[in-house]
Structure formats: structure tokens, C-alpha cells
């Protein structure tokens, strides 16, 4: 194939679009985080996010969050078209500040969980999940 100026420009535009999407999603995730924390600093202690390293299908990815003593935990999928996943608020009869659920991931990305502790501090955990593309799909 001979590279023409035109095809180089088209390829360049394609690369920009492909690169632009996750950037936008990340910005949206950052907005959500700022909304949740009010821009406060986040520690990394006191919260555990369990997610598979490789998800066999992005439609149903099991995750677990655990933050002893937290009031609430926000879960975000930073690479999804909209980053929100769930916000868990724990009441007085919660047996632990932990929960499991199944989530959708549009592709390989970082899943983020942020706990709001009772003392007003925040803690963040992040886990990269590789979403595989099946061989056949039939």
C-alpha cells in the first residue's frame, strides 16, 4: 500500500478518535470522584476492591468491595461510556461495609472504588480488568 497524504490524515484522525474516547470517559470519572469526595485527598488504606484480572466476558464481571467502617462506597468503571456503576450506602444494621455484585465493562479498563469513611476521610482502590474478546462468539 502506498501512503498518500490523504490516507495519513485519515489514519491520524482515526487514531485521535480512538484515543479521544477513553480520555473523555476518564474526565467524566474524575468529575464523579470530585462530586463524591468534594475534592478531598484520598488515601489507599482501608479499602479492598476484588475484581478478576481477566474477565471472560465484559457483560458479567463479578466484583467485591470491602471498606471496614465506611459510610458509603462509590464504584466507577473509568472506561465505560458513562463511568457510574453503583454507590453503596451502609446503614446501622450492615453486618460489614462490604458488598459483591456483577458489572458491565465495555473493554479493558480500571475499575475504581472509593470509600467515604465515618471520619470524613476517603480511600481509593483501583483494579485493572482485562476484558477478552471471544474467539467465536457464535
Amino acid at each position, binding site marked *: 500500500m502506498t501512503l498518500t497524504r490523504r490516507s495519513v490524515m485519515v489514519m491520524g484522525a482515526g487514531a485521535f478518535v480512538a484515543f479521544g474516547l477513553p480520555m473523555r470517559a476518564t474526565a467524566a470519572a474524575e468529575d464523579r470522584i470530585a462530586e463524591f469526595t468534594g475534592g478531598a485527598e484520598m488515601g489507599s488504606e482501608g479499602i479492598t476492591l476484588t475484581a*478478576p484480572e*481477566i*474477565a*471472560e*466476558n465484559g*457483560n*458479567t*464481571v*463479578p466484583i467485591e468491595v470491602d471498606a471496614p467502617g465506611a459510610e458509603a462506597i462509590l464504584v466507577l468503571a473509568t472506561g465505560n461510556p458513562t463511568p457510574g456503576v453503583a454507590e453503596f450506602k451502609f446503614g446501622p444494621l450492615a453486618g460489614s461495609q462490604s458488598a459483591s455484585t456483577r458489572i458491565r465493562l465495555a473493554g479493558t479498563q480500571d475499575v475504581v472504588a472509593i470509600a467515604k469513611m465515618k471520619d470524613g476521610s476517603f480511600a481509593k482502590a483501583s483494579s485493572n480488568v482485562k476484558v*477478552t*474478546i*471471544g*474467539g*467465536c*462468539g*457464535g
Partner: protein
Amino acid sequence: MKRTAAITALLGAITAGAAWAEPAEDKLTINGEIEMTTWTEPSAVVEGALPEVISGWHFRGTETRAMQSDDFDNPGMIFVEDAMAAWDEVEGEAGKSCASCHGDVEDSMKGVRAVYPKWNETAGEVRTLEMQVNACRTENMQAEPLKYTGTDMTSMVALISSVSRGLPVNVATDGPVAETWEQGKKLYYTRTGQLELSCANCHEDNYGRMIRADHLSQGQINGFPVYRLKNTKLNSVHARFKGCVRDTRAETYKPGSPEFVALELYVASRGNGLSVEGPSVRN
């Protein structure tokens, strides 16, 4: 030229990278009660073709495997519950439900899934479970038949399978079914489509290898109907066959066609000795 490129692409996908990944060494127990046979010695059917007979469960990831071990975690059981309600529902001119003749599904249907497809003497044909359900509906209930791969049918098959979980698949291959079984075997080894792939090319010659990011199984059907994470519903054997054949870029046979009935009989018999798993969970 195009075809060569396509074949090269697919075979490349099979052979490139980490070509072999061991099926996971794990033990499947359902609800902490039902011990499942998921890895066993080959029966006479596959002697010389497969060194061992392995359920598709072993080829799936840790989380997917775990989802099948508890009925509450297995989303396929939602459909089984729907079918449980349908079992008691009176339909058709005869004013009967499944329960009117068969009573409690757990008693009357235990062991049934394990021996299907099987010969029906009266009709003089090999019947899949779906065909038997529809024969019951049209002849005994005088109700409308269900769509072969529709949700109502697949849910009913899942219910009937669920009460046989843990029992060994034991499909007959001789006697009156021998001819159909031979036809199914021939289909299994016949290359189809633009990619010229037979069932055996992937599921006998290359199981355990990665096809792109997917772990190729032996294509056993002891776990059907299957709840797939991909489409979040139950999938029937013939719907899966159709998908596989389509992926070879062929015109497919129709669900319920004599060809797929024969193929189901043969493929089911390749899994003789494995436990009935349906509804299982796969990716």
C-alpha cells in the same frame, strides 16, 4: 485468495501466542451437595479420538466456574424457576398441564435428560428433549408447540435437565438409533463453510488451545442449556450448533432439523460418562 487469507487468520488465531492452556484443575460440587463428574475416561464412542473426556466447565475462568456451583449464583436457575411455574400451568384443549400426567418434576423427570436424544418406538424416530416436549404438548395437551430454540422451550429443557444433575450422560448409540448416530458422526467430521472447518477441527484437534482470547473446549453438550454471560440468557444445543456452523461461514442447518438432531445424538454420546450439568454457566 480471500478464503486462504481467512483460513490463515483463523488458524493463526488458534496457534499464535500462548497456544495451550491447561483446563483448570478443579472440582465441581453443586450447592455443596451434588458431586459432578466433569473429567473422565473416554467411553467406546470416543476411544482413540479423545484421550479424556472433559466438560466445558474446566475451560472457563475461575469466576465463571464458581457461578455454576451454587443455584442462587447461577442465573440459569431464574429460567428453571419460570419453567417450574409453566410445569403446573394448564394449557391446550385437553385441559392438562405437564404435572397432570407427570406429577412432581423432580421425581418423574430424574434421569430423563441423561438418555436424550433417544429412540421413540411409536413415532419411529430419534427424538431430542425439545421434540419430546412438543410431542407431549401437541398430542397429550393439545396445545401449541413451543418454538424450538425459544425461551419457553429452553427453560423447560433446563428444568428437566436440572433434576438430572450429577447423573452420568448415557446416550444409546446402537440399535434403532445407529443410523442416525452414524449420520451425526459424519456431520461432526465434515468440513463446512468458507473456512472449511469441521466440529472436530476445533473441538477434537485443538481443544485446550486459545482461539484468540477464548479457551477452546471439547464442545461437550452435557451442560446444556447454557447460561452465557455473553447474551445473559439460556442457549439451547441447536442454537449453539447454528452459531458454530455459521462461524465456519456456512449456510447452517435449522434448529430441529434432522441434521442437527443427528449431530446432537452423536455429540451427546461423546460426553457419555460426564455428569448432566444443565443449566451450566459459560462465557
